[in-house]
C-alpha cells in the first residue's frame, strides 16, 4: 500500500500531538493533585466525589456545633456543682442553727450568712456563657431569675442543636427545673418569697367557701381526718355528723376544752364551730381541705395547733352516738387511750403540700411542695426560720435541703448524660469523617507515582518519534537525481 508523503507527515503530526496531549493531561494531574479534572474523566467517580465532599462539609459543621454544645453544657455542669457546694454550706448552717445552745442573735447572724448564700446562688444561676444565659429558655438575653423577688422570668423551652445526622442535644437548662419557678395566675404579682400570713387582695370569681386569706398552715404537720368508711365526702356543705356530739380538745399540758357539735352539722359547720369558739380557737385551728382532685373530690378536716409546730400534742376525745367509722368518730385522736381516727401527717395534700398551681394557696410560704422542689424557696425558708428563731422550722429546712440536694444530683446526671452523648458522637463523627476523607482521596487524588511514570513514558515515546521523523525523511529519491 502506497504511503504518500503528505499522509505520512499528517499522521505523524497527529501522533505527536496525541502524545503531547496525554503529557499535558498528566502534567495537570500532577499540578492539581487530582485524578479527576472534569466530569468526563470519570463520570461515576465525580458523582461520588460530590457526595463525599457534601458529607465532609456537613461533618465539619457538626464539629463546630458540638464545640458550642460542649461549652454550654460544661458551664452548666460547673454551675450546678457550685450550687451543690453552697447547699452543703447551707445545711451546715442549718444544723448549726438548730442546736439548742444558740441564742437568737447567733441565729440572726447565721441568717445573714444564708442571705449571702442566696445572693450568690442567684448570681450563679444568672451565669452568662457566650452571650447566653444558660439557665434561661429561649429568652436568653435576659437574666432568668429576677434578683429582687427570685421569680423565674424566662420561658421553659429547651434549645436543641444538631450534633450529627438526625441527632440533637439540648444546650440549656431552664432554672424552673429545680431552682425557682414562674408565678402565674392571680398571685403572679405577689412578692412570693416573703414570709407567711399574706393576704390576697384581688378576688376574681373565688371558689365557694374558700377563704381568700392564704392558709397560715403549719409546714411541720397537722392532724388529718381519715376517709369515712361509707366513701369520700364530696361536698363539705352536706351533713357530716348525723347525731352531733362533743369534742374534748386538749393541747399539750393545757386545760381541755369542750365543744358541742350540733346534729347534721357539715364539715364546714364543724370547722366554723372550732374556729369561732373563743376557747378552742386559742389552741387549735381547723380547715376543710380537698385531699383528692377537682374531678374526684375528697374533703377532709384538718386540725392544727395554733402556736405552730405543736400539732402532734393535740388530743381530741369524741363523745357521740354516730355510727363507728363515720361522723364525729372520725375526729378522735388520743394515742394514749388508743382511740385514734385522725393521723398526724407531715405533708397533707391540699393543706401544706399543694401541687396544683391553680390552688390559691399554692404560693403560700408554707407549701412544702414548693419548698421541697425549689432551691431558692428552701434557702429562703431556712433564712426566715433562723430570723424567727423557730427551731422546729429550722429542722424542717434541713429536710428541704436534703430533698433539694437530690434534685441537684438528678440535674447533674442529666447534664452529664448530655456531655457523654456529645463525647460519643464526637468520636463517632471523627471516625466517619476519616473514612469519608479516605474514600474521597481514593476517588479524587492522583497517584503521584503513577502519573510521574506515565509522564516519563510518554516523554521517551515523544523523543523516539522525533528522532524517527528526522531519520526517516533525511532523504528521498530527488536527492539522488543528478
Amino acid at each position, binding site marked *: *500500500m*502506497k*504511503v*504518500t*508523503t*503528505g*499522509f505520512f*507527515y499528517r*499522521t505523524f503530526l*497527529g501522533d505527536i500531538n496525541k502524545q503531547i496531549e496525554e503529557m499535558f493531561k498528566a502534567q495537570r494531574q500532577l499540578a492539581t493533585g*487530582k485524578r*479527576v*479534572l*472534569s*466530569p*468526563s*474523566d*470519570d*463520570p*461515576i467517580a*465525580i*458523582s461520588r*466525589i*460530590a*457526595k463525599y*465532599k*457534601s458529607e465532609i*462539609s*456537613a461533618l*465539619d*459543621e*457538626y464539629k*463546630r*456545633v458540638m464545640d*458550642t454544645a460542649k461549652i454550654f453544657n460544661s458551664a452548666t455542669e460547673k454551675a450546678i456543682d457550685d450550687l451543690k457546694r453552697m447547699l452543703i454550706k447551707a445545711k451546715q448552717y442549718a444544723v448549726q442553727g438548730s442546736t439548742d445552745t444558740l441564742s437568737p442573735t447567733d441565729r440572726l447572724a447565721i441568717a445573714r450568712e444564708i442571705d449571702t448564700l442566696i445572693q450568690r446562688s442567684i448570681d450563679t444561676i444568672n451565669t452568662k456563657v*457566650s*452571650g*447566653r444565659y444558660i439557665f*434561661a*429558655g*429561649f*429568652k*436568653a*438575653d435576659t437574666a432568668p431569675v429576677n434578683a429582687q423577688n427570685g421569680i423565674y422570668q*424566662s*420561658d421553659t*423551652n429547651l*434549645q*436543641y*442543636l*444538631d450534633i450529627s*445526622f*438526625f441527632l*440533637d442535644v439540648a444546650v*440549656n437548662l431552664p432554672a424552673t427545673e429545680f431552682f425557682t419557678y414562674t408565678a402565674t395566675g392571680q398571685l403572679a404579682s405577689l412578692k412570693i418569697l416573703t414570709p407567711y400570713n399574706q393576704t390576697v387582695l384581688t378576688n376574681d370569681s373565688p371558689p365557694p367557701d374558700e377563704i381568700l386569706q392564704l392558709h397560715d398552715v403549719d409546714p411541720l404537720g397537722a392532724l388529718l381526718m381519715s376517709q369515712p368508711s361509707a366513701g369520700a365526702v364530696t361536698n363539705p356543705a352536706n351533713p357530716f355528723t348525723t347525731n352531733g356530739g362533743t369534742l374534748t380538745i386538749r393541747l399539750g399540758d393545757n386545760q381541755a376544752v369542750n365543744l358541742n357539735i350540733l346534729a347534721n352539722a357539715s364539715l364546714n359547720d364543724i370547722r366554723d364551730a372550732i374556729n369561732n369558739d373563743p376557747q378552742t380557737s386559742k389552741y387549735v385551728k381547723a380547715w376543710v381541705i380537698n385531699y383528692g382532685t377537682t374531678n374526684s373530690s375528697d374533703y377532709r378536716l384538718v386540725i392544727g395547733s395554733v402556736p405552730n409546730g405543736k400539732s402532734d400534742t393535740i388530743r381530741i376525745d369524741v363523745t357521740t352516738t354516730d355510727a363507728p367509722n363515720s361522723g364525729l368518730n372520725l375526729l378522735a385522736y388520743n394515742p394514749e387511750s388508743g382511740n385514734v381516727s385522725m393521723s398526724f401527717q407531715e405533708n397533707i395534700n391540699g393543706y401544706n403540700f399543694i401541687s396544683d398551681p391553680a390552688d390559691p394557696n399554692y404560693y403560700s410560704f408554707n407549701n412544702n411542695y414548693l419548698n421541697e422542689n425549689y432551691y431558692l424557696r428552701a434557702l429562703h425558708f431556712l433564712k426566715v426560720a433562723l430570723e424567727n428563731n423557730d427551731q422546729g422550722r429550722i429542722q424542717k429546712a434541713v429536710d428541704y435541703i436534703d430533698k433539694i440536694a437530690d434534685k441537684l444530683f438528678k440535674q447533674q446526671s442529666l447534664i452529664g448524660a448530655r456531655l457523654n452523648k456529645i463525647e460519643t458522637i464526637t468520636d463517632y463523627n471523627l471516625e466517619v469523617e476519616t473514612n469519608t476523607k479516605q474514600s474521597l482521596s481514593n476517588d*479524587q487524588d492522583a497517584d503521584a507515582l503513577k502519573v510521574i511514570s506515565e509522564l516519563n513514558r510518554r516523554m521517551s515515546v515523544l523523543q523516539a518519534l522525533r528522532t524517527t521523523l528526522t531519520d526517516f525523511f533525511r532523504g*528521498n*529519491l*530527488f536527492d539522488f*537525481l543528478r
Partner: protein
Amino acid sequence: MALTALFDIGKSGILTYQKALEVVSHNVANAATEGYTRQDVIFQNIPSGILSYAGVTGRGVKIADIRRMYNSFIELQLKTESSRLGYWDVFQSGMLRLESIFNDASDIALSNAINDFFNAWQELSQNPSGIAERSLLLDKATYLAHRFNLSYRALLDERYEIYKDSQNFVNQINQYLDQINELNEKIVANPGALDAKDQRENLVKQLNDIVNITYFEDNAGRYSILLGGMPLVDGGKVYHMNVRLDGNQNLQFNLETVSGSIDAKRLIQGGKLKAEIDLRDTVIPEYMNKLNMLVFDLTDAINRVHRQGYGLDGSTGNNFFNQLYDLTVAAGSPDITSINISSVNSNTYDQYRIQYNGTNWTVTDNTTGSSVTPSVTSWTEGTPPVYYYRLSFNDINITLRNPLAGLDFTFQIKPNTALYFDVAITDTDKIAAASSDPTGSSSGPMDNRNARAIYGLLDSPIIGNAKPIDFYRSIVSEIGVYSSSAKTQKNFQEALVQEIEKRRQDISGVSLDEEAVNLIKYQKMYEASARVIRVADEILSTLFDMVR
C-alpha cells in the same frame, strides 16, 4: 513521407514526453495540496493512416488522456465518515464547555455553594440572635443565588454563541454552493479541467462536513447537491439557506425553493451544523430545565418552612427567596402553601387558570387553550380543622389551604427561573430562625427550631424525589457520561477517517519517490526521442551529401 516520418515520430515523442513531464511536475508541486488527486498520463500509440496488409509502421505516440486517479467509492466513504467526525468534533467541544460550567471536580463547584448555604443555617441555630450569624447567612444565600444566576446565564450565552456559529456555518454553506455552481459551469464548458474538478470535490467535502448532503453527477458533468432531497445546486441554479430564531428561541432554518421558502431543520441530518442544533436545542435546554427545577423546588421548600417561622422582630409569613411564579387573582384570595414541579416538560412554563366552585376544581392551560384534569387529594390538619387540597397536573403540584368557593386565579412559573433566583430578605431581623414569636412570652431570641428545620431540608427529598445535592450530582454525572462518550465517539471516528484517508492516498495521493521515478523515466524518453531526431537529421545530411 519516408524521411520526414522519422522527424514526425521524434517530434511526437518529444512533445508527448514534454507534456508528461509537465504532468509529473504538476503532481510534485501539489504533493502537499489538501484533497489533490494525482494525475496520470495515458499514452497511446498513433496508428498509421494507411490501410495495408502488412509492413506498416505507426506514427508515434500521443497522450490519450490525462486522468485523475480517482475512486468515487472511497471518496464517498471518506466524505461520509469525515462528516460524522465533524459532528462529533463540534459536539464534543460543546460538551467540554458545558462540563466547565458544571465542573464539580473544581474547588469552586456549585455544590460547595449549596453546602455552605445550608451550613450557614446550622451556624445560625447555634446563636439565632447573633447579627454576625444572620449577616453570614444572607451573604451565603446571595452567593448561592448568584452562582445559579451565573451558571444559567453561561448556558444562555453558550446558546447565543452556538447561534452565531450556526449563522457562520450557513454563510459558509451559501458561499460553497455559489462556488460549486461556478465550477460546475466551468467544468461543463471545459471537461478537461482536472484541477477545477479537484477544487469542486474539495468544496463538496467541506460542504458535507458542515451539513450532510447528497450529490450526484448529471450527464453534462455538473454536480447536483441535495439536502434531504431538496435541491441546493441544481442545473445552474443555487438555492440559499438562512437561519433565524423562532418564537421559542430555537433555531429555525429556511431553504429557498422554486415555490417559496420551506423549513429546513428536519432536512439537516448530520455534520457540524447538526451538532450545533443538537447541542443548542436538545442538550443545553435539558440542563437549563434541570437547573430551573432545582432552583424552583429549593425556593418552594425553603420558603414554605421559612414562612411558618418568626424573625427576631416577630415578623412571620415572609419568603426567604423571591417567589418564582407570577400570580394574578381574579376572585377570592388563594392561600398557596406550596408549588413544586416533579419534572420539567413542555407545559411547565404555561399559564394555568384554577377555579374552585366549592366541590370541583377546574384547571385550564391558558397558553395552549386546553383544559387539564388534575388529580386532587385533600386532607385536614389540626383543630379547628384546616383544609388542604393538592392538585397535581402536568408534573406540577400545587397545594392550597382553606380554599373558598368562587376562587379564581392564574399562576405561571417564570421561564428561565434560575435567572430570577434571589434572596428576598434584606433585613437580618426578618430571617425566621424561631418557630414561635420570640418577642412573645412562650419563646425568646434563642429559639432556633425553624433554623434547624431549614437545615434539615438538605436531607429531604424536596427536588422531585431527590435531595438537593443528589439531584445536582446526578446532573453533573450525566453530563460527564455524555461528554465522555462523545470523546470516545470522536476518537473512534478519527481513527476511522484516518484509515479511509490512507486508502484514498493509496490511489490518489502523490508519493515523491514515485514521481521521481516517473520524472527520470520521462526525461530519458524525452532524450531518446530527441536523439531520434538527431539521427533523422544525420540521415538526411548523409542523403544530401550523396547527391552533389
